[in-house]
């Protein structure tokens, strides 16, 4: 289903108006229908780069107020078949790749909990790369307008999987361990780039007490990533389209590199650590993640290191907050490996492409709990990148290429749950 962005407002307003009624109508002991949503607008003064809430969005906001960056609407049904077995499904409508709003069923799984210690989930569910991944769309549950983009704007697909959780009590702490095995949905990042995941596995452990929550996880998968650049490069290197890149590039076939750069079976490993600490009216949240991956051209290895730290202080209904997020690149490039003979500009471009997404963001904002199920938020993001690189933003076609690497984004949102 596709909705034009202007129509989203009508859908959201209608859903809010109906929310209480719907909740009352459908709630029963066995079936519970719940919903969530965000009406958000965001703008940036940058005319060269468009701001987006995740890299799957192929359009974003620049010099206009855009409702599509953060707005979304979701419905969830929990149906208890027995005291131990329940069925959970969740559908979400939001901007994914293009301007239009797309609706899709994110989750559809069976949950079996024979007791308070064990639970087994089977079906389509969120992949556990990151601690807050399963709350990404439920903005009401976190202080900010959106999850910090340095950690959460990359691919975070759902999987058809089986997941086992075990919880045990140790003094004042609940200790939970999980194991996850599945196949993530393929991702189409733009009209042309795709990531075809192979089976992934993940393990993790978390602790929870009155005021402290932690989580540590490790996930590994392989994937085939294809893009026009890599496809053309293969052709170039196998002499099929040797002159496609103009004089001086691909002048001789390089079959070794061609075989090594077909984009298939690239290994991705995700390590994630999360902590949430509450002290009186203060709340501190931090997460650090490392994504290590084959660069697509053997033997080049690269990784992204991301983290964010957030502090907020609740004053009645108001919760002002500050956040600092960072994404740094580390790994092999032509320069770091000293492969001076390796002057193919297409290779060089691909290898340095990952480096161009480096950025950091300083954020200030405030959350106002207008009602028990409604939060209004205002946020100001100051994004800093290397000059003349896009970071996580989208280059506006035809825009000047020379920039100072700074972009400010203003956002206002209304989150609701019912």
């Amino acid at each position, binding site marked *: 289903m596709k909705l034009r962005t202007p129509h989203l407002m009508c859908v959201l307003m209608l859903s809010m108006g109906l929310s209480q009624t719907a909740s009352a109508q459908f709630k029963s002991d066995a079936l519970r229908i*719940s919903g969530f949503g965000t009406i958000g607008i965001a703008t940036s003064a940058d005319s060269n780069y468009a701001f987006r809430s995740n890299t799957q969005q192929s359009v974003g906001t620049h010099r206009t107020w855009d409702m599509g960056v953060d707005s979304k609407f979701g419905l*969830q049904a*929990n149906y208890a078949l027995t005291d131990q077995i329940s069925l959970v499904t969740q559908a979400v409508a939001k901007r994914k790749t293009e301007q239009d709003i797309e609706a899709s069923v994110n989750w559809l799984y069976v949950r079996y909990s024979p007791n*308070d210690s064990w639970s087994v989930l089977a079906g389509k569910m969120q992949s556990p790369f990151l601690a807050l991944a*399963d*709350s990404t769309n439920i903005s009401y549950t976190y202080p900010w307008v959106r999850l910090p983009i340095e950690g959460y704007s990359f691919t975070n697909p759902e999987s058809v999987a089986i997941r086992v959780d075990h919880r045990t009590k140790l003094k004042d702490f609940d200790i939970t361990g999980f194991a996850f095995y599945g196949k993530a949905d393929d991702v189409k990042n733009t009209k042309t780039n795709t990531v075809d995941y192979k089976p992934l596995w993940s393990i993790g452990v978390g602790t929870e007490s009155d005021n402290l929550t932690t989580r540590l996880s490790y996930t590994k998968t392989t994937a085939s990533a294809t893009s026009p650049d890599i496809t053309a490069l293969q052709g170039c290197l196998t002499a099929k389209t040797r002159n496609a890149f103009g004089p001086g590039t691909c002048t001789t076939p390089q079959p070794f590199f061609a075989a090594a750069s077909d984009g298939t079976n690239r290994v991705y490993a995700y390590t994630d650590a999360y902590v949430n600490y509450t002290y009186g009216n203060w709340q501190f949240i931090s997460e650090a993640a490392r994504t290590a991956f084959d660069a697509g051209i053997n033997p080049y290895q690269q990784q992204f290191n991301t983290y964010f730290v957030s502090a907020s202080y*609740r004053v009645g209904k108001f919760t002002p907050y500050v956040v600092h997020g960072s994404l740094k690149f580390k790994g092999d490039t032509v320069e770091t490996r000293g492969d001076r003979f390796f002057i193919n500009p297409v290779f060089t471009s691909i290898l340095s492409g990952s480096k161009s997404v480096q950025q950091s963001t300083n954020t200030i904002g405030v959350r106002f709990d207008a009602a028990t*199920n409604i939060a209004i938020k205002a946020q100001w993001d100051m994004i800093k990148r290397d000059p003349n690189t896009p970071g996580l933003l989208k280059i506006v076609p035809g825009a000047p290429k020379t920039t100072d690497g700074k972009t400010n984004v203003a956002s206002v949102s209304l989150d609701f749950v019912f």
Partner: protein
Amino acid sequence: MKKYLISLFVFTLASSAAFAGDTVLVAGSNSAIGKLDKSKAAEYFLGKTTTLASGDKAIIVDQPSNAVSTSFLGAVIDKTPDQYKAYWSKMIFTGKGVPPKNLSSDDEVKKFVASNPNALGYISKSSVDSSVKVLLEP
């Protein structure tokens, strides 16, 4: 203006203090559920424990955001109703649990727990009568 703000602050603190300890956790007078400590009560209201000592499924009863819920949730789980709602929203939408049943007044809670031996809920202390027994005075 300064005097007004100080007065408002003192009044707010005094109001909060007046509610603290004015609520109780109850079950029906014929229920087999025994006394609970604050930690165990918190586990029920946060969905971490779903069964009673007898092995039966516990039915937890909540109230909407009001003075009674503000007092009880603050004393037992150290959360405001807004924080409690955010907690349960996360639980619901991550598929980890279903929140307690919501009843709108002390009378409705008493009526419900009196007719369900596996149910427990909170009411103001002044509403306690012979239909319920007190499990916890936070």
